[in-house]
């Protein structure tokens, strides 16, 4: 009957009366009961974060490129355009995510048809992460050696080709690192999205853990979030190391 390790822990804990061991054992024993809803919530979180990442790259990458190319001394200097883009990005960055989520509710309803659930959460998540990622893209592109860009000009390279074949490949390790930061930020935002009914691990932690005083759900979501962030960061670090040729 002592096949389940949780039982062993329980036996050990009960022998010493109530204490931290007993709490841990109870948590471990509770895990199978929680797992179905934890697994669903994890899937929701991954779903929201992945799609939001896709949109952040689709919009944030070109935005970051424009912030660099329209700058003074850039490929296509346009100070007025840059000032507008920069202001938009700053506005997006200055709103706390929880405020942004509420502020874009009507847009979310217009795009998705509802403001509840993980699909609806993708809208504020993307809007929150786009300016964040755009700034990171701008920073890594700024690191690209100006001499290399000049050399490409001297070789008669079109500007669009300079972006695609010189600037982006040269900045790739920095771009990947920025992408990982964005994913990690999105995981954190996604937990906040749970607070207004976005679904996912954050939602579970608030509903079960906070509102129903179930500490086990709280701990379980914390553990899963840590695992997801660690996995994303490790994968990113690996890619950056592989791609760095300097």
């Amino acid at each position, binding site marked *: 009957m002592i096949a389940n390790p949780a039982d062993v822990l329980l036996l050990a804990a009960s022998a010493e009366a109530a204490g931290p061991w007993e709490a841990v054992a109870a948590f471990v024993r509770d895990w199978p009961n929680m797992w179905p809803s934890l697994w669903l919530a994890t899937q929701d979180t991954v779903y929201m974060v992945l799609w939001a990442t896709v949109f952040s790259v689709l919009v944030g990458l070109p935005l970051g490129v424009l912030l660099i190319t329209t700058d003074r001394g850039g490929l296509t200097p346009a100070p007025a355009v840059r000032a507008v883009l920069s202001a938009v990005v700053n506005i997006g960055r200055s709103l706390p995510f929880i405020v942004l989520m509420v502020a874009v509710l009507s847009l979310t309803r217009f795009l998705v048809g509802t403001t509840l659930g993980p699909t609806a959460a993708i809208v504020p998540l993307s809007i929150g992460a786009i300016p964040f990622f755009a700034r990171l893209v701008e920073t890594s592109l700024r690191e690209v050696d100006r*001499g290399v860009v000049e050399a490409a000009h001297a*070789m008669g390279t*079109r500007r669009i080709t300079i972006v695609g074949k*010189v600037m982006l*490949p*040269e900045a790739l390790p920095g771009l990947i690192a920025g992408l990982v930061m964005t994913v990690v930020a999105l995981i954190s935002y996604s937990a906040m999205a749970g607070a207004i009914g976005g679904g996912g691990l954050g939602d579970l932690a608030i509903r079960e853990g906070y509102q129903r005083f179930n500490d086990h759900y709280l701990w379980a979501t914390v553990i899963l979030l840590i695992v997801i962030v660690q996995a994303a960061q490790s994968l990113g670090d690996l890619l950056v190391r592989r791609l760095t*040729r*300097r």
Partner: protein
Amino acid sequence: MIDAVGLHKVYRLKKHRVTALNGVDLHVESGEIFGVVGQSGAGKSTLLRSVNLLERPDAGTVTVGGEELTSLSGARLRTARRGIGMVHQHFALLSSRTVAGNVGFPLEVAGVGRAERRTRVGELLELVGLGDKARAYPSQLSGGQKQRVGIARALASRPRVLLSDEATSALDPATTESILGLLRSLRDELGLTILLITHEMDVIKKICDSAAIMEDGEFREAGRVLDLIGTPGSLLARSLFPLPDLAGPDTVVVTYPRSFDEPLMSELTRRFDVDVNILGGGVERVAGQSVGRLGVDVRGARRAEALTYLSEHGLLVEEAGK
């Protein structure tokens, strides 16, 4: 091959204006190596960048190989630039590409197919002596090897003109020597015309046929190196052969624009009964010739006759005392 006429360029900084080019005329013959030497801030970098229009001059025209570049823009300017190779001080290689990828870049941009690119890249790497480094990344190379990659890349699209922006300034003396040797042999083999800028007199001495000294956005003097050395008061001669401070009343500076077999100095003392005392100087190979410059005290009653004798033998004699 390169004709630039009346180049002007002014940079407007926040408070003041900086004149980088103040009416420069540059003429580089086909197949020659032309060196522009000057301090940093003299405008030589702007001049070089004006030739392929990385900097567009405010006034003046640039003609390369018969084509007036200053009248071009857009696609036609890009095409023209592919006929002008450029080598950079800090190599400007793409760190994300292998050596072969870097050398192939200009071909890729010009739309050359993969197979042809491979062959050409192989040839170019052999040409610069890096046949075994095709798959290395720039970070794995030494400075001299990186510059060889830079040179191979500059030659990829078979340019007739090569611009060199301080190509050896980031290299140690031995590597500098080998890169200069490579540039000279490329000129000889491919018939390239090379325009280089440098702050090192040594570069002028070692490989340049013609040179210009640039200061404050203007050429102070320009021409064939040997002609300049044989010209009285030449700045180039003074810079190539620095002499110790010679202010004695009887001191002359004697320049040998070529090598002489006759023992001129002992002839001098014998014929004119003067005392000759060599104070300093040197003899070096410049533009393929042995050239010397000496500071000499010549004393005696027949001093003037002695100096005339030297002039008649093709030496340049300048009084240093005044």
